[in-house]
């Protein structure tokens, strides 16, 4: 059994594995921290955590090139961190401090770090799918080799923009990867109760002439491998992919959600038996990674997040002068002369 797994997984080397673990673990700790800060009333507004869904962000980001572009939702902390954005910048933005990625002007739902290829997080369901298509059009048009990846939830497959984006991307064979994180719920409503097909993304792939791809979204290796195939397809000019990742959201939908809609035991089941971090930690050990190495990663991630938390806490709130900056390209907001 162990043997078989070794064989099955020997395409990924230890260095990559540790990278994948580091990325997942960083997301886990940072998201938990965000939750704690919310309880301390230091995170204002809303926030949507990816606890339990870390493997998807980590797997894709690890397979990306530096010049690749990510488009995220309001549930985008994970994807932003996975591309290497500063933890201070992310936590600072959640705390709406001057050190935040957007100096508090965007907030938790709109994390953006273009220096890392994170082309924004969008809070209106579906809108960022066509934008990712546009980035892919630019890559094709200008002869660039980057690929656009757009992350979205199961619930998003029922909105019009999903359909338009998929068709458009296929018609022009654009280098864009559509990643559906199926965590079983839209906000509080089970996805199967409001969707015509069982697999909301994969069962619609054929409507765009695409392959139906369903993967275990809680297995970072499987995600990484699938991502690699999709990126190489896109970079070879063979067009888009639509990938449905099965996963589960361990946190509430947003900050104040008690999760009353979950059937008894469901959350526990996923936490105990299908947590991506726990699973990956076991796999590392199975593959001979030393406990010390793992401990080292975990310690350094914790330190990073602790230090970032302190730095963000000490950052001032944004100065009032920036209220009216960057509305227009000239830096200001004047709509009249």
């Amino acid at each position, binding site marked *: 059994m162990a043997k078989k797994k070794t064989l099955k997984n020997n395409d990924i080397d230890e260095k990559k594995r540790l990278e994948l673990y580091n990325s997942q673990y960083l997301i886990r700790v940072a998201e938990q921290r965000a939750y704690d800060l919310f309880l301390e009333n230091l995170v204002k507004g809303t926030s949507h955590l990816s606890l339990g869904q870390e493997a998807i962000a980590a797997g894709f980001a690890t397979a990306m090139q530096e010049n690749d572009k990510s488009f995220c939702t309001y549930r985008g902390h994970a994807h932003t961190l996975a591309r290497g954005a500063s933890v201070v910048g992310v936590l600072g933005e959640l705390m709406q401090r001057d050190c935040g990625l957007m100096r508090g*002007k965007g907030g938790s739902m709109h994390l953006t770090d273009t220096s890392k290829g994170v082309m924004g997080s969008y809070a*209106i369901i579906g809108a960022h799918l066509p934008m990712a298509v546009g980035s892919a059009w630019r890559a094709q048009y200008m002869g660039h080799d980057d690929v656009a990846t757009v992350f979205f939830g199961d619930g998003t497959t029922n909105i019009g923009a999903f359909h338009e984006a998929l068709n458009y991307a296929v018609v022009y064979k654009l280098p864009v990867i559509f990643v559906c994180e199926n965590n079983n719920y839209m*906000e509080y409503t089970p996805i199967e*109760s409001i969707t015509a097909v069982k697999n909301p993304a994969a069962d619609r792939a054929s409507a765009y002439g695409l392959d139906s791809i369903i993967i275990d979204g809680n297995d970072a290796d499987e995600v990484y491998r699938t991502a690699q195939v999709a990126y190489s397809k896109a970079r070879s000019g063979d067009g888009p992919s639509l990938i449905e990742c099965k996963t589960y959201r361990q946190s509430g939908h947003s900050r104040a959600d008690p999760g009353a*809609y979950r059937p008894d035991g469901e959350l526990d089941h996923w936490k105990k038996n299908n947590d991506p971090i726990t699973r990956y930690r076991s796999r590392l050990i199975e593959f001979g990674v030393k406990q010390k190495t793992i401990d080292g990663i975990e310690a350094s991630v914790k330190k990073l997040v602790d230090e970032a938390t302190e730095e963000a806490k000490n950052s001032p709130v944004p100065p*009032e002068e920036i*209220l009216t900056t960057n509305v227009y390209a000239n830096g200001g*907001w004047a709509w009249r002369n």
Partner: protein
Amino acid sequence: MAQLTYREAVAAGIAQEMERDETVAFIGEDVARAGGVFKATVGLFDKFGPKRVIDTPISEQAILGAAMGAAMTGMRPIAEIMFSDFLAVCWDFVANEMSKSRYMSDGQLKCPLVVRTGNGGGSRFGAQHSQSIENWAMAIPGIKVVAPSTPADVKGLLAASVRDEDPVIFFEHKSLYAIKGEVPEGEHVDTLGTAKVVRPGKDATIVALALMVPRAVQAADKLMTDHGIDVEVVDIRTLVPLDMKTISNSVIKTGRLFTVEENPRLCGWGAEIVSIVVDELFWDLDGPAVRITTPHIPLPAADNLEDITIPSVDRIYSKILEVLR
């Protein structure tokens, strides 16, 4: 009289109408089993069941289209668009369909439906979940536009909206959901198109809407206390039909007009009211009509920034003082 919160008044208004009229049904995202993301529709699912209180997919165009098709053919649906910002994804149904079908068909088609939506800022949600877009709706001929400021008005105007034969966009203010107020016991139905003088005064008129109403009243009280300036506050309550009589009477009496708008400046409803007053009551004005608005910028997320964006009691107070002095 019962003490209800603004959010409880929403559920109470819907329940009253659903009990009265079998053809009223309610659809929206997460509105049924979960009682809505703002908990404004808690209890309706238990009371009326899955046939009449329905969780939908994230398909705003289908939601408004379904409400329209049902309204055309005999129902009186209530549809929720969770945040008013999301009306942009189904704007065609508001701007081109429900508003125009009666006219285009020369009266053959009707659309008695209500679109409820959470409007306004103050929750630190950032630019895509905090907008006040009542002016977008006011700009569309063929619909009615309501935005209550108290629990009693929520219930009474919601009931009136459900009973109205025209499509109504009903803006609930997110930052008012928690406020409490007296609501008449028993059946309560108000009248669309009626503004209210909520604070009488003689030196100037403030016209305000939704969250801006309590702020305007506070500012007016402070102007009285600090400077003896006696400001009348009119709560418009419904932008369409617009109760110009009440507004005009007030302006004729006071000679000065201020509007307090949460929508961003350009083409806000305050501009419309000012332009009517300036056309019709120019010679009654004793000085400039002045608009106090959210500046023409997207809304920032940070609390300190959001607080200086939306008109505050202080800003209303200072602006009026500056102008009247």
